């Protein structure tokens, strides 16, 4: 079945609900990792990285906007309201993406973990690229068209984090040790990104996206490949230690992120920002 327009999609209640669930996951994942990325501005290891990372975060925020606009078209409300005014339990991003960059805040005593940033972004960009490759053939055409555009930009993000990852994994013993700690940490939460949540089966049934298992297998293969290039191995399956964000389970870190993100918007949602 192909859904050329939102009207066609809406005629199939189950597909319509599954498409919305998928869009919330895609939008919230990009929104959160872009926000955490933007907090690094001025704090990245060197000035060229500041330019690169902020450009990546801006791009990623733009991708989130695309998905929020698709939700707006499906009648979920204004894109700005969807992104800023929901309650934390209504967010569908994976928990690993909402986690703080480290202790302190960007204004006060930031003690951010660069190894965590590199690993989280690399693992996420593999997952995102694999998802986009599948979404290019989505039965919901407006989503397929956007995926085709996003993937051309995503290519540069992935290349960037692969470079950092390989260099730091082959750098000093301290760098290696920090990177390994970050890999272990992100791995044990990463199934939160890979799961499509309770609506996953319906998403696959209506060919909105490939099956969760297929996407997960491809991700594990990609990550194991780069790990083997730097002589590292993880035997266990990726975990979801802190809970399932696709079911509205979140940590205090999400509340903290949202309170800062939407602080200005909440003062006057009617104004055109």
């Amino acid at each position, binding site marked *: 079945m192909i859904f050329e327009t939102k009207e066609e999609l809406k005629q199939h209640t189950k597909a319509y609900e599954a498409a919305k669930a998928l869009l919330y996951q895609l939008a919230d994942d990009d929104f959160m990792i872009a926000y955490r990325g933007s907090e690094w501005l001025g704090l990245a290891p060197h000035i060229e990285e500041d330019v690169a990372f902020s450009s990546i975060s*801006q791009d990623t925020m*733009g991708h989130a*906007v695309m998905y929020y606009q698709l939700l707006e078209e499906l009648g979920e409300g204004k894109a700005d309201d969807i992104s800023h005014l929901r309650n934390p339990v209504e967010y569908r991003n994976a928990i690993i993406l909402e986690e703080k960059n480290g202790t302190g805040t960007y204004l006060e005593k930031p003690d951010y973990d660069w190894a965590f940033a590199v690993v989280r972004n690399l693992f996420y960009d593999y997952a995102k690229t694999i998802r986009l490759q599948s979404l290019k053939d989505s039965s919901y055409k407006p989503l397929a068209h956007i995926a*085709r*555009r*996003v993937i*051309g930009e995503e290519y*540069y993000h992935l290349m960037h984090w692969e470079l950092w990852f390989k260099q730091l994994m082959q750098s000093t013993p301290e760098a290696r040790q920090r990177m390994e700690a970050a890999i272990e940490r992100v791995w044990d939460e990463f199934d939160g990104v890979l799961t499509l949540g309770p609506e996953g089966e319906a998403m696959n049934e209506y060919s909105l996206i490939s099956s969760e298992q297929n996407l997960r297998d491809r991700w594990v293969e990609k990550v194991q490949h780069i790990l083997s290039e730097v002589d590292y191995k993880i035997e266990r399956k990726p975990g979801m230690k802190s809970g399932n964000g696709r079911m509205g389970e979140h940590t205090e870190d999400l509340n903290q992120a949202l309170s800062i993100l939407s602080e200005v918007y909440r003062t006057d949602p009617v104004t055109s920002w």
Partner: protein
Amino acid sequence: MRGGSKVVIERAQLVEEIRAVLQEVKDPEIPSISIVELGMLDTVEVEGTKARIQAKPTFVGCPALDIIKKNIVNAVIGLEGIDEVEVKYVYDPPWTTDSISEGGKEKLKVYGIAPPPSEHTPGEPWHIDCPYCGSTYTTMENIFGPTACRSILYCRSCKNPFEAMKPVANI
């Protein structure tokens, strides 16, 4: 019937006029090149006194998109016979760097930006010549630059820093 064909001709003329004024709408971040030369313009339609314009965004997260939209409206609303302008961004067909016209590529160089290569295959080396002296003796300083679509390079021959537009292919 005569009146009908006259309307059709007038409408076609109006569409041509719109395309002509859009030549004057520049990219706010690269003022040497127009949105038409960048390949952003998709379709122009006129119905009565309303103009409907479809445009293809370059980078989807580009913060200049809203400004460009406003500039399109302002340019077209001044035309005689038009009182309403609707601008919509579309993603199908997709914009790629191959959408930039040959003339547009030359104008990028005027602004110190090396144009993207034609028919680039992602993953393959991307040769960038200096937009000032034409030398191929250049190095990539940062694949990410001041805007989403640009990278920062350095010419070892004429010793100028310069920028290049990233190739975006339909992968």
